[in-house]
């Protein structure tokens, strides 16, 4: 099988030929991508994750879009009918299917291409591509080369949104291995509060490959609750970066839930550029079959007095693989940093495996940092205790696994999304009390 070079080149030439506000930016990134190529497993950051192998000449890249509004309604998460809705079809923002329920004074959603040429151009200039300082690899550059299909979101100063923003990524895999590259840039202004949720849908039952970059900047006193919910089935390949900058003292909170996929790679960055910032990162990967889920997180403490807390949990059944890499950087001047990280894994399947690398890099002395990780099986004593109370071995196992997993789900702030995720987790673990 051939690699994807020709297909990608053709697609790039076609879209960049049209020019536009982002043409130059895209060309730079295409050049960068051409130089770097896709990350191979000898790249330390991609040691366990063979995403490159998915990039073959079978990729389907086009802007075909046959989804009707009625068909879309059937895909909407229950109880979220009032949400601000952003729809990506095959990696490109679709304004007609999207819908804003908060007022225009509160929230602005528009194509990234437009934002790059209007009053938001300055913000775009500064923030678009900021994640490349942390992920200077070819796959990020490849997404940037197609940035003009992206969306720009601005939550205005002092606004606390009435409704969450839910981003639906819909990939049509009926024509073959669908390749989508969504790009999202979010501007959360001073003292604004927002719930941002991303979810993914595979239509057509075929294979997909999604390469996403989300860049968020949160100003002073802003509050962000971010959720990424991945459960689109076993034929999905995904590599994505969510990059969150705190430019003022604020609170950012992220929950990443991965329930299925073929190869799933999530990068999550919290860049704490202001004093007294606070960040939380939670993750659950609940895997079966041959799924490989790889979570790479970075907390970069650049300024003093920041607090960060991180908890990722994995349950690996069958022949699935869980990968976790958590980096905590404490820069020279970031005194009084408190940074905590924990990664816990349970191997259930006989052919399951777990690879974890918690990493601390500390250059200031007056800090409190700790990390811990465990890889193990279910606690035999706890199992016995439950069974001694008359609970069957099978139920005891699902009870314990559920208890292990659910405290991540409980971190989701939005009640409807939380209930939905709870239901998915309970179903997966055959848990019912």
């Amino acid at each position: 099988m051939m690699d994807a070079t020709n297909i990608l080149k053709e697609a790039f030439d076609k879209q960049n030929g049209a020019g536009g506000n982002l043409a130059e930016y895209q060309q730079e990134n295409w050049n960068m991508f051409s130089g770097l190529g896709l990350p191979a497993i000898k790249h330390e950051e991609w040691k366990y994750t063979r995403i490159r192998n998915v990039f073959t000449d079978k990729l389907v890249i086009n802007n075909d879009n046959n989804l009707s509004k009625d068909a879309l309604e059937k895909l909407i998460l229950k109880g979220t009918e009032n949400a601000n809705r952003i729809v990506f079809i095959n990696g490109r923002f679709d304004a007609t299917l999207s819908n804003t329920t908060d007022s225009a004074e509160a929230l602005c959603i528009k194509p990234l291409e437009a934002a790059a040429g209007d009053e938001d151009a300055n913000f775009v200039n500064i923030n678009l591509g900021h994640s490349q300082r942390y992920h200077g690899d070819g796959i990020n550059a490849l997404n940037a080369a197609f940035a003009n299909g992206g969306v720009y979101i601005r939550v205005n100063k002092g606004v606390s949104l009435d409704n969450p923003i839910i981003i639906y990524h819909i990939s049509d895999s009926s024509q073959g291995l669908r390749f989508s590259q969504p790009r999202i840039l979010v501007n959360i202004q001073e003292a604004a509060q927002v719930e941002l949720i991303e979810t993914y849908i595979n239509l057509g039952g075929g294979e997909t490959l999604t390469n996403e970059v989300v860049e968020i900047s949160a100003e002073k006193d802003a509050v962000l609750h971010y959720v990424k919910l991945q459960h689109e089935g076993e034929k999905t390949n995904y590599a994505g970066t969510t990059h969150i900058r705190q430019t003022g003292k604020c609170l950012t909170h992220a929950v990443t839930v991965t329930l299925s996929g073929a190869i799933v790679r999530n990068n999550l960055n919290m860049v704490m550029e202001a004093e007294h910032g606070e960040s939380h990162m939670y993750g659950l990967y609940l895997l079966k079959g041959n799924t490989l889920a790889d979570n790479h997180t970075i907390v970069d403490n650049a300024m003093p007095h920041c607090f960060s807390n991180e908890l990722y949990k994995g349950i690996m059944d069958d022949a699935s693989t869980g990968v976790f890499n958590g980096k905590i950087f404490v820069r020279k001047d970031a005194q009084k940093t408190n940074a905590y990280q924990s990664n816990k894994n349970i191997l259930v399947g006989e052919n399951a495996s777990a690879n974890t690398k918690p990493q601390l890099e500390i250059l200031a002395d007056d800090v409190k940092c700790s990390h811990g990780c465990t890889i193990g099986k279910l606690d035999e004593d706890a199992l016995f205790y439950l069974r001694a109370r008359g609970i069957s071995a099978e139920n005891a196992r699902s009870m314990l696994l559920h208890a292990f997993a659910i405290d991540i789900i409980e971190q989701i702030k939005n009640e409807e999304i939380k209930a939905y995720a709870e239901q998915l987790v309970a179903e997966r673990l055959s848990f019912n009390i």
Partner: protein
Amino acid sequence: MLKINNLQASIEEKEILKGINLDIKPGEIHAIMGPNGSGKSTLASVLAGRADYEVTGGTVEFMGKDLLELSPEDRAKEGLFLAFQYPVEIPGVSTTNFIKSAVNEKRKYLGLEPLDAAQFLRNMKEKMKLVEIDQSLLSRSLNEGFSGGEKKRNEIFQMAMLEPKLAILDETDSGLDIDALRIVANGVNQLRTKDNAFLVVTHYQRLLDYIVPDFVHVLYKGRIVRSGTKELAKELEVKGYDFIKAEVDQELA
């Protein structure tokens, strides 16, 4: 109710129980006493079915069934309850949900309808008074961050909820102050009927002031070496275990 006949058990090929014989009838309270390392807790664990122990000989009959053939959960559903010496902390599992599911699993086993939420709550409120346990404790994760006394009370509370035929209390008195001990004992005494039985495993006579046994057995080196009434416990209190050890060691020699 429980007939133990020449029970032998070992852990990691080390023989701990070397032939235990014991007969417990409904309505009776038996106490097993003995010095540290005599096999008391092993006996409790083997009866509950802990996998670490291997039964190498003998039989145990419980309510007419071969107990050793049953899984730990089936033993529980048949009416055998072990109050753990070290109750396990299980983060994330709420105590209430845990007990509810235990109660309903047992009801299912007995062919009864599961309790609905209202019935269960009524039942729970009633039993909570018995062991003076607080509601707030029950909404927390199972035993997580509980004090020693709270853990033990939670064990007795679960016993009350599950209404076992035979309850084995494994060193339930260890680590309890006198007030907690009184509460625990009080709970046990109120749960006592002519149809159920208790096997109280303890190192000290102290607990037996509150839970008065019908029979006292002394376990030493994996065997019951003396059996008697509560007077035997009193004697042990005064003389300590050394006099029995000396006598037995002499007999064995």
